């Protein structure tokens, strides 16, 4: 039960030799399956646990905190909605949005109060002023950062106004700086959270697309009606991209298993095979079939078949053109690989390291090279 990995160079050397090694068979595969299932269960459990913890965490804190969870949890659609709301806020900035800002303001007020309390303990007004000075200086930087995202400056204004209305006094410069820093921090958090969300959405799409082969087929049908020019562009695009490791997308289109007679010597069938083999080697059979034309022709056909069965194993960093160069001595022969492996035309992302690609020996090309 060997799963040997011939590389192309070996195969070119002995093109008639034993070819094609395909799937791992028997117990190896079973173990793999079991491992996969165990991993999957662990993965699901982990996600469930995270979901549970996450639910608890956000459930408790949703009242007290600046509303970060909208950004973390809500899908991209929701965040665009909030952005839209924010821009609306900017339009009439005199009124403060009732939902989020009171919370934010109360939070900010608490922060400010704490800071003030600290300073009160220090009880040195001049020192406070000195300490506050660098913060005031840093304000433009914070604002600059904040300006990168429009909603931030708008929100700042809104917060300022809200603070003024609720506390009944104007905030000092250093308070403003603190608020600005806080807002910038929260926005940065939200910003970081967005890509993470996008990736989870991406994996979701992947898993569903793996299921949905029918949609893929429909796409292909559309693509096939395209003009030649279109095909050309996709081909060159594929050539540029390196072969990706995507073992999860493995699709076995060979359905071949390598078996070996090793360890099967006690088997009745193996014994019979050996017996037949010894009869085959007897002089009578050799003499009797030597001159038969039919046997010769079949023999030649088998050699041809062996050449047609040639394959290569995709290595890391391979491109279709590099494979074509190895197999046929010219990078432009990638079309032959497409012809022999229609599944990669359908989905170029199905090329992965360790994949077996058919690269039948090109007799015509060999003849041309000879001339």
């Amino acid at each position, binding site marked *: *039960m060997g799963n040997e990995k011939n590389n192309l160079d070996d195969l070119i050397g002995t093109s008639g030799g034993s*070819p094609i090694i*395909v799937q791992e068979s*028997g117990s190896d595969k079973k173990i793999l399956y079991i491992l996969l299932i165990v991993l999957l269960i662990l993965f*699901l459990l982990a*996600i469930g646990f995270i*979901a549970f913890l*996450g*639910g608890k965490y*956000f459930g408790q804190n949703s009242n007290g905190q600046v509303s970060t*969870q909208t950004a973390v*949890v809500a899908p991209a659609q929701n965040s665009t909605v909030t952005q839209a709301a924010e821009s609306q806020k900017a339009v009439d900035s005199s009124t403060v949005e009732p939902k989020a800002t009171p919370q934010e303001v109360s939070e900010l007020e608490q922060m400010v109060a704490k800071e003030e309390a600290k300073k009160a303990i220090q009880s040195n007004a001049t020192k406070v002023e000195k300490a506050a000075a660098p913060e005031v200086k840093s304000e433009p930087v914070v604002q600059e950062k904040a300006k990168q995202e429009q909603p931030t400056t708008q929100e700042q204004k809104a917060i300022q106004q809200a603070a003024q209305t609720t506390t009944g006094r104007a905030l000092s410069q250093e308070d403003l700086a603190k608020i600005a820093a806080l807002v910038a921090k929260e926005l940065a958090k939200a910003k970081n959270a967005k890509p993470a969300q996008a990736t*989870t959405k991406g994996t979701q799409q992947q*898993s*569903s697309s*793996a*299921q949905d*082969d029918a949609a893929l*087929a429909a796409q292909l049908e559309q693509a096939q009606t395209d003009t030649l020019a279109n095909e050309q562009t996709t081909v060159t695009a594929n050539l540029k991209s390196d072969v990706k490791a995507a073992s999860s997308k493995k*699709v*076995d289109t060979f*359905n*071949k*298993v*390598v*078996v*070996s*007679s090793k*360890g*099967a010597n006690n*088997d009745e*069938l*193996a014994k*019979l*095979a*050996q017996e*037949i*083999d010894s*009869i*085959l080697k*007897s002089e*009578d*059979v050799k003499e*009797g*079939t030597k001159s*038969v034309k*039919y*046997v010769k*022709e*079949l*023999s030649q*056909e088998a*050699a*041809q078949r062996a050449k*047609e*069965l040639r394959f290569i194993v995709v290595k890391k960093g391979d491109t279709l053109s590099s494979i074509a160069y190895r197999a046929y001595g010219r990078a432009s022969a990638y079309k032959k690989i497409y012809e022999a492996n*229609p*599944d990669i035309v*359908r989905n170029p992302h199905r090329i992965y390291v360790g994949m077996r690609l*058919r690269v039948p020996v090109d007799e015509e090309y060999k003849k041309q090279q000879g001339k």
Partner: protein
Amino acid sequence: MKTKLMTLLLLIGGAAIASENIQVKITEKIPYVTINDSGTEVKISRIQDTHNRLTDDFTKTSRACPPHCIQPVKPVEGVKTIGELELIDFIKNKVYTKKGILVDARLKKWFELETIPGSINIPFTLAVVDSDKVKKALFKALGAKEKGDGTYDFSQAKDMVVFCNGLWCGSSVKFLKQMVAKGYPKEKLFYYRAGLQGWKLLGLTTVIHKAIEAK
């Protein structure tokens, strides 16, 4: 939030379960069959990629005839011709219980390239060769017992399903004709006409025998 994660979980779980499912079964009730071939458990199933096409040699339409001529459904009177399901049933029951053997009647070169799981190579040349010695050895290997008077007791002899490359392959027909002519009971012989081409056309599992070491 919880519900969203739950749906994600379900999606992932669903995808995992779906990938385990066999979409392309052999029949409605048979998803796959396992058979021991040379000490290896081989799962006979069909290629699961529903877009897959044959691209190699077995898509070749034309080989010179003769020798590669179209074969009749009943090449030898009294020998039954069977299809894939009967063959799979034979593999499952007869080959498994050692009462029968699946015979690849092609030359050894062909057999080594690719063959049907559970099969044994008895090249048609063994049956065709006109030699009493070869016949005796072959019949003995197949479980026929020689009686004193030159006839054979076939009660313990193996049932045989014989195949070769396909509809255009005469090897198995030559083998069957010769075996019948030499006295092997017709009722113990079966002909899988579609051969390796038919087998591959259905995307069924094939095996490659790593060089069989003769001892």
